[in-house]
């Protein structure tokens, strides 16, 4: 276990230290006094355990591939932005755009998430134990979003692919998002995933997918037609 005191380091110094430790095979890194600062543990590309003893700011653990990050507190906007692989666990609540454009890995939020959770997701799994804000899953292209609490307006608006599972009240579905039948196997798989995070309740999830009515990939622009 290596302790780093964020209070005594600039963000760049801290991130360089974390990356160097991870690259040199450190197994556990603990960051003290993060004080909700931005851009912590960005672009760490080797497997290791990183624990933040307190809240973090924007873009924490973004562009990351490999580590297991635990945040004992809250996170700001865009936690795990463009996550490639690895896992992120935040025990508190997180801001808007958690898991935006993530391509792989898993993010678990113990509290609530803000607006636009999982916006433009391209893979991986985003799990929120509490509620998510409006326009969550906007334009998602792949992956899973699992929400145990309430969901705001416009869920899954303009999603291309991927699946959203919601257990509680959904304020409204977004454009082109529809409910689909959920299979027993899917439910069991979600319950198993949640159990890994200590959630034993077997919620009855509803499944939301794209109706694909907005697909116009073969339609040509008027100008293109005249050229042909």
């Amino acid at each position, binding site marked *: 276990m290596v302790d780093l005191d964020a209070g005594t380091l600039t963000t760049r110094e801290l991130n360089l230290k974390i990356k160097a430790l991870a690259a040199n095979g450190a197994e556990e890194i603990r960051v003290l006094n993060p004080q909700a600062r931005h851009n912590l543990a960005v672009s760490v590309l080797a497997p290791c355990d990183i624990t933040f003893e307190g809240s973090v700011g924007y873009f924490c653990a973004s562009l990351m591939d490999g580590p297991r990050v635990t945040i004992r507190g809250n996170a700001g906007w865009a936690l795990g932005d463009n996550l490639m692989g690895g896992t992120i666990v935040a025990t508190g609540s997180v801001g*808007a755009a958690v898991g935006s454009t993530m391509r792989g890995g898993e993010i678990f939020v113990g509290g609530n998430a803000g607006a636009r959770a999982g916006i433009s997701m391209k893979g991986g799994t985003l799990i929120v134990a509490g509620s998510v804000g409006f326009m969550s899953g906007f334009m998602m292209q792949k992956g899973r979003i699992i929400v145990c609490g309430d969901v705001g307006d416009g869920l899954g608006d303009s999603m291309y692919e991927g699946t959203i599972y919601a257990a509680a009240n959904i304020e409204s579905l977004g454009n082109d998002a529809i409910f689909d039948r959920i299979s027993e196997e899917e439910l069991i798989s979600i319950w198993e995933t949640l159990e890994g995070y200590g959630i034993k309740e077997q919620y009855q999830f509803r499944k939301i997918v794209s109706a694909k009515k907005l697909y116009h990939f073969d339609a040509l622009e008027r100008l293109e037609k005249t050229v042909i």
Partner: protein
Amino acid sequence: MCGVCGILYKNRGDGARAPIGADLTSMLASMVHRGADSTGVTVAGQSRQSDLIVRVWAEDDADGQQALGKVEANLEANGARVKARSRVGDYLRVSVDYQGDVQKLADALVDMDGLVIHSIGECSEVIKDVGTAGDLDTRHNLGRLRGTHGIGHVRLATESRVDISHSHPFWAYPYSDVTVVHNGQLTNYHKLKRKYEDMGYRFQTENDSELIAVFLADKLALGATLSEALHDALGTLDGTFTFLVSTRDGLGYAKDQWSAKPLVTMETDDVIAMASEEVALRSVFREEIERVEPQENEVMTWSI
């Protein structure tokens, strides 16, 4: 991008004053990355006297001394009795005993060449300047100001020029004690500004955020509660915004229909605090906090 923050100490009816100036300074300093063009605060509840505190900025008067004399003479000529005055460079602060219509006093002052009113109020004062929170604190000694509540702003200018008058907070001409800080852009600003000018309102700047202050004060003057005025704002203002308003008795916020601009709030037994980012709250409250992120079309108010 801009940063906003606000703080209100509860249960201060007994007259005990809290370190509003110091709190706002730390919160704004921690959000310098959200804007370093200008910084400003409203500190409210410094005194509970019936005096009016007039804060003006003399644009063309480098040392302010000459302007101070003219401002005092103008105030006296309009029925206000000057009780105290002070000056930091070209910033003038005059405390007056005045029972009349604030608009009359404001019109008389704003008609003076190069004079901009930053605030008129019985209990709240606006202090703003170009530069960072550190600059503002050094120049105006913000840290010593105590009160019951206040709001602050760091600005990264997008729609109007960078100068002292286009800095936040904006005072709602000509109402006492209504000021606003805003993060965002209003898209129906010009249309609404013309409407309010037709109604007789005067605007001191070309900043869209000034309109929010005037809009809210107009509603309050017509008898709306602060919460009702903020709900009206959601229905009327178009664009992106998270704005905070400070009045004689409290604070409020409103957030646009897209939840485009950030805000987090926290509450303890003693205090309500809010800011664009948690990092600002943590600059005052070092221990871990429970914070709430307000969502789209949301309004909230608190009273001292």
